[in-house]
């Protein structure tokens, strides 16, 4: 059985390889690799991030491709499913490089990013890391592009606005996975530095708890002014609803993993989220580039895009731009070196998230705007420091 299956796979792969080689020869196509969760619990997230890349690829190809050293190239996105498992991401990336000679592999989760960073410099491909963990670029990998800005940029406006509006007593009631811990590790010191105090620290397993009643009431017993919450959007909205039902009147600082528009869908509008500050949902972002992007995406996919889609969309446009600037589609070092310039050259409608550039470590900077829910509407607030 196993022999037959692997034989079938081999012939399939060989046929695909021959096909890919054929098409590459005919049209000078560049393969862009993608590995992410396309099945299982995080499938929706994986498919969303992929749709951003595919949308960019479609635009590039419809415009007749992009020019590198006098030759036109088209883009082919090859996506492999890793079921959110870093080990599978690594296998997929190896395959994307060996079989398709992909100069860049996009991966939308920090675990996968770290797995790929173990060998990407050696194998010669760029990791297109969709994660806001600052560590993704701080560990010295020379071929990483961290697509979204580091979450550290959100901390300053969150602390400033919430402390001013609601008070100095903070309760931590966020999720307990690694990413949330990294957030707490940045948020709590910033809160204390601004003169606040932390009255309760009670992380909860957002994905494993059947009920948040006890956890939230424990936090509220120390009567905080502001609650720091966050995990996936839907459980986060349940935590917020629970706090309101228990009579909490203060504000919420919402970690960037939770998206305000998704939360509003789970609790029937913004009424319960009053006083919450979080990432600005793309559909509420009224800057010109964002608006055109949202309209285009809605037309293509018939739903609202989230920020994960726009970031990946901009990233692929920037990568092809960098290839044109570097004059090569296969030298990852040369392409990586031109990314900063490439992002700066993007037009606003191709850069809805307003990424202003990439630092020498590969981390992106963006003009960060956060959203505060006020009287049932999301009000944009600009960060004082750009990250």
């Amino acid at each position: 059985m196993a022999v037959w299956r692997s034989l079938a796979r081999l012939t399939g792969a060989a046929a695909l390889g021959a096909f890919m080689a054929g098409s590459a020869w005919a049209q000078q196509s560049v393969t862009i690799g993608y590995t992410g969760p396309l099945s299982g619990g995080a499938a929706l997230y994986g498919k969303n991030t992929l749709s951003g890349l595919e949308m960019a690829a479609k635009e590039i190809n419809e415009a007749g491709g992009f020019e590198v050293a006098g030759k036109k190239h088209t883009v082919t996105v090859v996506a492999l499913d890793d079921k959110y498992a870093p080990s599978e991401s690594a296998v997929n990336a190896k395959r994307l490089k060996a079989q398709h000679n992909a100069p860049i592999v996009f991966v939308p989760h920090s675990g996968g990013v770290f797995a790929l960073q173990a060998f990407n410099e050696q194998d010669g491909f760029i990791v297109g890391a969709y994660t806001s963990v600052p560590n993704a670029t701080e560990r010295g990998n020379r071929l990483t592009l961290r697509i979204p800005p580091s979450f550290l940029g959100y901390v300053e406006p969150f602390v400033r606005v919430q402390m001013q509006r609601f008070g100095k007593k903070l309760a931590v009631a966020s999720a307990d996975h690694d990413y949330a811990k990294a957030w707490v590790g940045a948020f709590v010191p910033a809160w204390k530095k601004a003169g606040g105090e932390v009255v309760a620290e009670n992380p909860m397993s957002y994905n494993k708890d059947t009920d948040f009643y006890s956890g939230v009431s424990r936090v509220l017993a120390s009567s905080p002014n502001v609650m720091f919450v966050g995990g996936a959007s839907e459980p986060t909205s349940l935590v917020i609803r629970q706090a309101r039902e228990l009579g909490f009147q203060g504000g919420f600082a919402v970690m960037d993993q939770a998206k305000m528009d998704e939360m509003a869908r789970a609790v029937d509008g913004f009424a319960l989220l009053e006083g919450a500050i979080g990432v600005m949902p793309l559909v509420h972002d009224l800057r010109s580039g964002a608006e055109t992007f949202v309209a285009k995406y809605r037309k293509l996919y018939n739903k609202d895009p989230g920020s994960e889609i726009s970031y990946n969309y901009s990233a692929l446009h920037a990568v092809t731009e960098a290839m044109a600037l570097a004059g090569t589609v296969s030298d990852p070092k040369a392409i990586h070196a031109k990314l900063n310039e490439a992002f700066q050259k993007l037009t606003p409608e191709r850069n809805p998230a307003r990424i202003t550039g990439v630092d020498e470590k590969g981390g992106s900077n963006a003009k960060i705007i956060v959203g505060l829910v006020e009287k049932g509407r999301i009000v944009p607030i600009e960060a004082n420091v750009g990250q």
Partner: protein
Amino acid sequence: MNIFFQQLLNGLTLGSVYSLVALGLTLVYGILHIPNFAHGALYMVGAYMAFFATGSLGANYWVAMAASAAAVALLAVLSERLVFHRLRHAPPLHDMIAAIGLLLFLEAVIQAVWGADFRRLPSPYPQIVRAFDLTAPAQRLMIIAAAFGLMAGLHLFLKRTILGSTIVAMAQNREGAALVGIDATRVSMLTFAISGALAAVAATLFAPINLIYPAMGHLVIMKAFVIIILGGMGSIPGAIVGAMVIGFAESFGAFYVSTDYKDIIAFALLVLILSVRPQGLFTRGVR
């Protein structure tokens, strides 16, 4: 004092939901003599059925609960007829494997139809009751009332009606029950139907304060297993008391000790109780 009562109320809510799920599990144990792993999937399907009835068909919450109970009861009976009945002469291991297969199958079907997204069932009573300085969402009070009502109904059915007694008789001694003329097939179908309906009602009651997604059954079924082991496999009072013990342990543990430790507290309690009473709190003549 107020906070203490709040946690008491919360423990009761959790215990009520757990006990409805555990009751179905323990009843079916009397027939299959293995824990039915697919029970968590029935709970999940129950939530989706109620979601479908209120959302797509526009039914009233209570109508949706009844429809969901009926649909899941039918599904449970079908699983008995098509799977477990055919395996009645096979070794118990086969039942267990079939149950796991059923669990994966149901989850995959639900995910194929509704996708992996989180869904939500709006609460029919979103009000918050405030009395004596206590606040309680009406939905939580309703869960407690409905669960205790159902438990009382189930108790009366099993103890006071002939049909109910046949279930108890079957669980106690299969051969003996057959000898006095009890139709084993009918009793198995009835038991599966009741267990499915209980799971669906539990899911419909709990869904408005929680979320609906394909993996939602895992957590609850884990707890339900612990509960029936704690209470004694196949014991009905055991399932109720066990559920309350776990519910209160979680609620008070999370509040007074730490949210991180609440599962540790619940499971440590399991180890402690089992080391004192290895057969569970309440045991009957079932093996």
